[in-house]
């Protein structure tokens, strides 16, 4: 898994996640995201267009991040879900509670 900082757009910090979010790699995602939230970044776009795989451990990391941001009155949006990731979001019911958009550009148009 690789996490990239893609800069700010319309006041949202755009973070990219590449590779796999599994039981081994997700703690790094939680740590990195947690640090940014603690630094005051409470409006985030997490771009998953290069994420190939996610398991329940990955969903746990996403939920932890969303809860943390919500507690601070912020917002976290997810973009670019590939088929394998979208399937996991749908089966788990996450797609009904977590805001997702087709792409970062599409999300920014709605903001």
């Amino acid at each position, binding site marked *: 898994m690789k996490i990239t900082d893609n800069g700010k757009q319309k006041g949202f910090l755009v973070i990219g996640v590449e590779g796999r979010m599994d039981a081994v790699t997700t703690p790094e995602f939680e740590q990195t995201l947690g640090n940014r939230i603690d630094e005051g970044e409470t409006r985030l776009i997490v771009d998953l267009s290069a994420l190939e795989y996610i398991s329940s451990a990955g969903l746990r990391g996403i*939920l932890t991040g969303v809860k943390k941001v919500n507690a601070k009155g912020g917002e976290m949006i997810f973009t670019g879900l590939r088929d394998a990731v979208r399937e996991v979001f749908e089966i788990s019911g996450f797609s009904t509670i977590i805001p997702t958009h087709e792409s970062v550009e599409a999300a920014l148009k709605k903001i």
Partner: protein
Amino acid sequence: MPQMRRRAGLEYLEELIAFVAGHAETAGFPPSRIREIELAAEEALVNVFKYAYPETGGDVVVNCGLTDEGRLQLEISDRGIPFNMLHVPDPDLTADIPERRIGGLGIFFIKKMTDEARYQRQGKTNNLTLIFDKRD
């Protein structure tokens, strides 16, 4: 059937998943189905890592091969406490964010991704058998 035995620990997850995915790939399973097989395998293995050996460590044994009908058969065995993960109730998939829990979701994924799932306690061994059709 090809076998891989490792200590039950997260540090071996990637190696074990690659072993399973390799068999699915060689057998010509489509990439989307391989992701689903990896998902079921990860959830089952992580469950063993977390709960099978609460006090002492132990091994996990993964057998992976094709059935005569061309289905992928995955057997995961441990000698830990008796536990049938297939009996765990499904999680609440409708809870909103504040009430959302991840517990039980991994096992739910196993049930959704497999075409057949069986558990047997044989002597001191937990045996979980997961069968995957190609679905292409």
